[in-house]
Structure formats: structure tokens, C-alpha cells
């Protein structure tokens, strides 16, 4: 810990269009501001550099649409960022050209997370995505051609109007591309978004049918040989890939409770028991850094108890057993026994003492199980 955070998150908020379901900090267009924003990012990084370890494990460029950023500015940013073993960039299919793929590659990016979402044109339209199904495939090929051997596809299921067979078709399309990694999210209609306003009723009506989709995704992907290593994340196992660990090392950092520094508008950091969120307002963010000040932040001090709670909450999302060592103060022993009897959790030996795993059904009910387990 004293060595500093070994994970760096960089937020690039710009998008061509804000999708209705999105609740991230995004900014549409404003190409003229990309340069000043990258300046601000680099200033913030400079201000916080002391919090980072000398050697980084991961860098993650998320958005927004990082690949929508003006290529010149994106290149400048990649060149200025510290090196890391894993450097991931989120990309939207319609932005991935051979030139962009080459730019990323040259900029030290090792992994690309491609926001495919679905291959059904009608559903892409519902999601207000710019790309068509062919854009997804083409983007994937461009990345492969540029030499990327670690590509992740994002899929969204539970889209209004999506049938079970439609979901199967999406999974087939995704598997056909042979990605090293898949992230599958149920569409979350967050209150207040334009999307929920438009489709909320339809989603409520579909709710019972949608319940089975998660299980279906898990069954299909594990049958295809993927490892269900986190609630929503799947990767090819090491034995198929010459011993490579294809889990998202950056995200693994979050789930294992490691420190991380986040820079950019709305970015969140957690370092040494303190979590902060930068202002989500772009002008405020850039103006502060232009003055050489840290941007306005919302700060949350995390007590030892809260950190333990989060350790359980996040750790139980993983397929690897969670060592119980030191977690006793936040665990409800009676609930643990009850959940074991219901075959939702299993206890087993670990290096030191015992460890906890959720059974497959326990993982589908992870939030309920965690709420029971925590005192």
C-alpha cells in the first residue's frame, strides 16, 4: 500500500452522441475542447503522481468514448501516460478504423474493450447506438489486423424487445468472433435517464422473462469454454491461451480492493482509505486544472469496517474463494450457516483459515446473499 496505487483510470468523456441508457459522465462533441481536456488530464496526473507506484500494473482509458477523442490528442495522451503491463482502451465500433487501431497499438495499448452491445440492428436502434452490426465485426477485424491479441466485447442483454432467441443469436455472433474476453451486462434502466422514461414500462412488463437471461448467458458462455470469473465478466482460460491470464487485470484491482487513482472529469479514486470523485462538470474541471488546482472533489473517508464490507461485497463477485481471514467483524455467522444450508455459499479451506465461495446459484443471487451475509 505504501508503495502507491498500481492502477490508473483515465476518463475521456467525449461521445458523438449520448445513448439514452447511459448515466456516465459524457460530453457530446466539443472537438475543440479535446486538447484542453487532455492538458487538464495530464496536469491532474502530474499533481497526483505521488500517489502512484513507480511501476504501474494497469492503465484503463474509459469513457465516454475514448476513441472518439481527436486522434492527435489521443496520441498525445497515450504517449504521456505512464507505462503499464496492461493498458486497456474502451472503443466504440464505428470509431475503429485501421488507422485508429494502429494508433492505439503504437501508443502502447495492449487490450481493447469493444462496445458491441448487440448485433441486432433493431435493438441497436433502441439503444441509440450509432454502429450497425457490420461495424462491430469490422472493428473487431481491424483490431486483430493491428495485432491485438486481447480483445473484449461488451454485450448488453435485456433490451426492450429482445427475445430469448435474440439473446442466443447475439451470443452466437459474439462467440463467432472469438474474443479473449466478454463483459455481459443486463440493461440497467436507471431512474432519470431518457431511456427509462421511454422504455421503463416495457422493461417492467418483460421483467419475469428477463430474469432467466442472466442464467442463459452464463450457461452459454461457460459451455463455450469461457471462465465466469466475475459476475458479469468472462474470459478464455489460461490453458487455452498459453498460460495467459486474460482477466481484466485493471478491474480485478477494483474487485480485490486495491488502491486506484482515477483522473478526469467525474473520475473516482480510492487510495489509502479515502475515496474521492472529481467534479462531473467539464468546465469546472478544466478551469481548476488550468489554474494548477486540483479539481473540486467529493471526498468519502472509508472506515476500516466499510473497507471490510466492500471487500466482501466485491470479493464475492469473483469465482475465486474469498479468504475469511480478518472478515469476521462484518460477517453474520448465523446467516452464513443458513446460506450454506440453502446451497448458496460454500466454505472451504484456504491458505490461512477458511475461504468463502458462492455456488453458481449463489452468484446469480449475489446481492441478496451479500446483504444477508453482512452484519
Amino acid at each position, binding site marked *: 500500500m505504501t508503495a502507491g496505487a498500481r492502477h490508473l483510470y483515465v476518463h475521456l468523456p467525449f461521445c458523438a452522441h449520448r445513448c439514452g441508457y447511459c448515466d456516465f459522465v459524457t460530453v457530446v462533441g466539443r472537438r475543440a475542447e479535446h486538447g484542453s481536456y487532455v492538458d487538464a488530464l495530464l496536469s491532474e496526473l502530474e499533481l497526483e503522481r505521488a500517489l502512484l507506484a513507480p511501476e504501474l500494473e494497469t492503465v484503463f482509458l474509459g469513457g465516454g468514448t475514448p476513441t472518439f477523442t481527436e486522434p492527435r490528442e489521443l496520441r498525445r495522451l497515450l504517449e504521456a501516460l505512464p507505462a503499464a503491463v496492461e493498458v486497456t482502451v474502451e472503443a466504440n465500433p464505428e470509431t475503429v478504423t485501421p488507422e485508429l487501431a494502429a494508433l492505439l497499438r503504437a501508443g502502447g495499448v495492449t487490450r481493447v474493450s469493444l462496445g458491441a452491445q448487440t448485433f441486432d440492428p433493431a435493438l441497436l436502434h433502441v439503444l441509440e447506438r450509432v454502429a450497425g452490426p457490420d461495424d462491430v465485426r469490422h472493428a473487431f477485424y481491424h483490431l486483430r489486423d493491428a495485432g491485438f491479441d486481447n480483445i473484449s466485447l461488451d454485450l448488453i442483454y435485456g433490451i426492450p424487445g429482445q427475445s430469448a432467441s435474440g439473446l442466443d443469436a447475439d451470443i452466437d455472433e459474439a462467440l463467432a468472433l472469438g474474443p479473449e474476453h466478454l463483459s455481459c451486462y443486463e440493461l*440497467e434502466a436507471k431512474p432519470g435517464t431518457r431511456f427509462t422514461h421511454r422504455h421503463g414500462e416495457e422493461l417492467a412488463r418483460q421483467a419475469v422473462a428477463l430474469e432467466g437471461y442472466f442464467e442463459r448467458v452464463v450457461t452459454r458462455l461457460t459451455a463455450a469454454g469461457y471462465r465466469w470469473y466475475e459476475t458479469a465478466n468472462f474470459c478464455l482460460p489460461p490453458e487455452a491461451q498459453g498460460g495467459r491470464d486474460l482477466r481484466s487485470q485493471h478491474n480485478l484491482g*477494483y474487485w480485490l480492493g486495491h488502491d486506484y487513482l482515477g483522473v478526469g472529469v467525474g473520475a473516482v479514486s480510492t487510495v489509502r482509505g479515502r475515496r474521492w470523485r472529481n467534479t462531473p462538470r467539464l468546465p469546472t474541471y478544466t478551469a481548476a486544472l488550468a489554474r494548477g488546482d486540483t479539481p473540486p472533489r467529493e471526498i468519502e473517508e472509508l472506515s476500516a469496517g466499510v473497507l471490510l464490507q466492500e471487500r466482501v461485497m466485491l470479493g464475492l463477485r469473483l469465482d475465486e474463494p474469498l479468504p475469511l481471514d480478518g472478515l469476521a467483524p462484518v460477517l453474520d455467522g448465523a446467516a452464513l450457516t443458513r446460506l450454506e444450508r*440453502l446451497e448458496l455459499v460454500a466454505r472451504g479451506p484456504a491458505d490461512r483459515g477458511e475461504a468463502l465461495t458462492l455456488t453458481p446459484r449463489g452468484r446469480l443471487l*449475489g446481492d*441478496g446473499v451479500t446483504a444477508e451475509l453482512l452484519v
Partner: protein
Amino acid sequence: MQLDRIRNFSIIAHIDHGKSTLADRILEVTDTVSGREMREQLLDSMDLERERGITIKAQAVRVLWKGHQLNLIDTPGHVDFTYEVSRSLQACEGAVLVVDAAQGVEAQTVANAYLAIENDLELLPVVNKIDLPQADPDAAATEIAELIGGEPDDVLRISAKTGQGIEDVLDAVVERIPAPSGDRAASARALIFDSSYDQYRGVVAFVRVVDGSFGTGEELLAMAQGTRFEAEELGFFSPTMRAVETLEAGEVGYVITGLKDVSRLRVGDTLTSRANPAAGPLPGYKDVKPMVFAGLFPTDSDEYPELRDALEKLKLNDAALVYEPETSNALGFGFRCGFLGLLHMEIVRERLEREFDLDLLVTAPNVAYRVLTLAGEEVEVHNPAEMPPDIERVEEPYIRASIIVPKEYVGPVMELCTERRGRFDHMEYLSEERPLLIYELPLAEVVVDFYDQLKSRTRGYASFDYDVIGFREGSLVKLDVLIAGESVDALSLIVHRDSAYGRGRALVDRLREEIPRQMFDVPVQAAIGSRIIARETIKAKRKDVLAKCYGGDITRKRKLLERQKKGKKRMKQVGAVEVPQEAFLAVLNLNENGK
């Protein structure tokens, strides 16, 4: 006052037929209060003598009229308090029977008139509200004459509101109601017809002296209960408290006892002198037993001590209220309370919620059952959960119901009574348009939403009253509800065998809707003994996890989790199943609606 100069009477009427307005007018016409005082004091529920710290309602007011002492004795309005009403009537020689000129005779008029006749009272029929545009005094007078016998012409026609005919009523009280009889030389005896509790003076008894006389400071004895006390003060209300040295045979007044518990001085008991006790008590005392029971639980279990304190306070002034602690696996700690009837229950519940600011969960009301076990033991059961397992025979209380409806609704009313296991007794016509139906019904069928059904099936025209006539054997079974195999005591019911299936089905369906899905399948069953008569399964959740959780989501996710945990704390635990309080409320409401 000479006995032949005293008249003791009550006013009896259906609700809103003008009883209190007539009483107020009598006080005015007799100059007992001025018009100004009237507004200031009496409309304020006669909370008198505030400055002396006494807030006892005057249960009897003395007025003077043309050289006579008239004692107007108040009676509780509703038949839940039949026994109290009959004791008040026993203190009188006559009653003014008031009927609304626009509405005619109603069920409560009938029930009260019967009570008065049973107590040998001279009835003085009066048609009130003759000033109303829709008044039909002749029709109302004909209905009264039909009900109590006599001629429509003998019925007085008045308007308590305008004051028209009030003096005629007072004259008729003097002329037609007999003077009390009593032996002033005999040992003193007085009937306690009401009592109240005052926090400074203790129990105040309202009495009608029957024989002899009582003096201030005298040592007294309540003959049935054996309670002894000193008469700290004697007096009467007119309308404020007036202390006197003695109360004599024929007179009505109050006795301040200094006793600290109303249950030690019960209505109907006889007061006598300890130094010179009467040979025997006045007839008619009985220990009133509650007939309707329900569990009262605080919605917030932390409010249990407040509920206990509130019940203690209510009990001070309500000898008929009984309660004992009850523990329910589903609802936690509360009290099983016994009431005289439905209205009494409503009053208590409302006072607890309004005066004591408590939020209550009330179980479905049930009646008292007399159970003979196979072992030959007789027990009275006040709580379905306590029904013994091996039953030879169960008896339940029956009532005689008087229902008056416009004749076009006779069909729907008979249908309702039949559905409720009623036995038709007879029907009589009070007028061509309005028959009076007499039914015998199990009280249990009436405590569950009978009144609402009656009103809805007759567009609100039916009027209904009842009195308890005794216990009868019934084909009754205990219906249990099981959630995940655990019996939920608060939802147990005693029902007639024929309606068990329907009730069980309705309960199970409702619970399936109300109980949120859990992490495992939850069977919900209705059972009679070990036989399951209805079953539904609440299917387990298939998914309960937020898909995304990255660096920026952790705090939000943790807060959602905390909210989820907090929600669970409000749940009631039945075995491993978490049941929201709302589910119990919904089911308890369902019971009230009897669907």
C-alpha cells in the same frame, strides 16, 4: 325532595335522531344553564369543572321543572354497551323515545325500545326534527305506535333545534312517567349505573338511590364485589357538580369514592351502608364478559412499552376492556384484548392511535369460543392460535339481529344473513314500506365486515343492531396459514367448516401476492389440522445482482446494499422467510373484508 316530586328518565334514540340536542334544550328551557353557557360548556362534551381539575362527564343532570326534580340520565348510545344501557335504564322510571321525523324508526330505536320495555319503563314517544322540509311526522308517529303500541296521536311532535314542543315534553315527563317508589326508612341501597375515573378524585360512581339514604363521609360497601370505601363527597350535576350532605331514595347523583381503579366498582353493583347493610343487593348485576377479541401489536416493536402504558390508562376508565400480553411469532410482542363488541373495539383502537399516537397492527377480530376437549375439559378460547388440538365440541356466541330496511332490499339482506349462517326468526312491518327482520346469527359472522356488506347491499339504507343471546354449538374448524412450513399464529382463524376452503384460498392467494420472492421457493399453505386445503408457491428469485461494478460504482453499490439490509430489518421473520409487515396488513384487511 318528596318522592312524588321526582322523575327519573333517559332519552333513547337512534344515532343522529337528536338526543343530545333535546338534552341541551331541556337544560336551557329549565334555566339550568343560560344560552351563553350552553354554547361554551355543554357543546364541549360537558367537560365540566376544568378549573377544579375534574373532567368527568355528567352521566346524569338534575333540572327543576314546575316544582319537580327531573333527573336526566344519559345512556351509552350503542348496543355493545347493552348491559350499561340496561343499568342506566334500570335507574329510571321512564324514557323519552326520540325518532327523526324524516327517517322514522331505525334498528337502534328498536333495540333501545325493547330494552326500555324489558326494564318496565314508561315510554314517552317523541317525533323530532319536524321543522325539516322532508319531515313526515305522521308516518314516523305511526311507525313508533306500531313498534311500542299506542296511538299515533299520543306521540309528541317537536323540534329540538328550534325549541318547538320542548315544554310539552317536560310536562309529559311529569304527567306520564311515574314517580320513583322506594322505602326511605329501609337500609340504604343504590344502583351504580355508571362510573368514571378522575385522576385527582379517583373513581366517581353515578348512582340511583333506591332505598334509604346515604350521607357524606359514610363507610360504604359495593355488595357484589365487596369493595369498601368512604363516600368522600355526595352530590349531583346541574349541570356543574353540586355537593350535598345526603342522597335519598328516588334521587340520582354521584359518589366520589377515592378508589384508584374503576374495575373495583362495577356498573350494576349495589351500594349499601357498611354500618347498616341491606339484606340483599338489587337484582340484575352481572359480570360483563368481553365477546370480541383481537391482537393489538405495535407496528414498531419498540413501541411495546408505550402500548402497555396506554392500555393501562384506558383501562382506568373502561372496566369492560381486558387485555393480556401476547407473543406472536410473526408480529412480535403485543396484547390480546377483549372488547364488548365491534364498536368498543373500534373506540379503543381509535383512542390508542389518536390519544396515544400509536401505530397499531390489529389482527382479525374473533369471538370467544367455549371448547370441550376430548379429555372432557371445558376451556374458553380467546385466540385462534390457542385452540386446543383435540376438540369434542365448540360453542360460539350467537346474537339476535334487528335489521330494518326499505322492503325492496329484503331479498339482499336475507341473502347476506343466510350466507352468514343466519337463522331467520321473523319479520314484522313497522310500516308498509319498512319491514323489521329478526335473525339469529353467529357473532363471529358479524364481527367480520357484516355491517359494511349490509350497507353496501342496501345502498346504505339498512339499519342494524344486535344483542347477544347465548352460546351454541357450531361446526367450526381452526384454519392455519403456513409459510414455508411454519404456522403463522397471527393469521390463524376459526371458521365454519363450509367456508374454510374459500377463506384459505383467499389468504394463500393474497400472501403469494404480498410476500416478495426469496432466494428459495416458499410454499404458502392453508391447513385444517394436518390437512392442506390450499397451496401456492412463491417462486425463488432467479437473479439478484447488479451487473456492473467498477471503481466508480463501489460507493453507490454499497449504499444500495445498506438500503437492502435496512429494508430487511423492517421485515418480520417467519422461519427463514422475510415477510414485510405490509403483507400481514393486507391479509388482515382481507379478513376484515371477508372476501
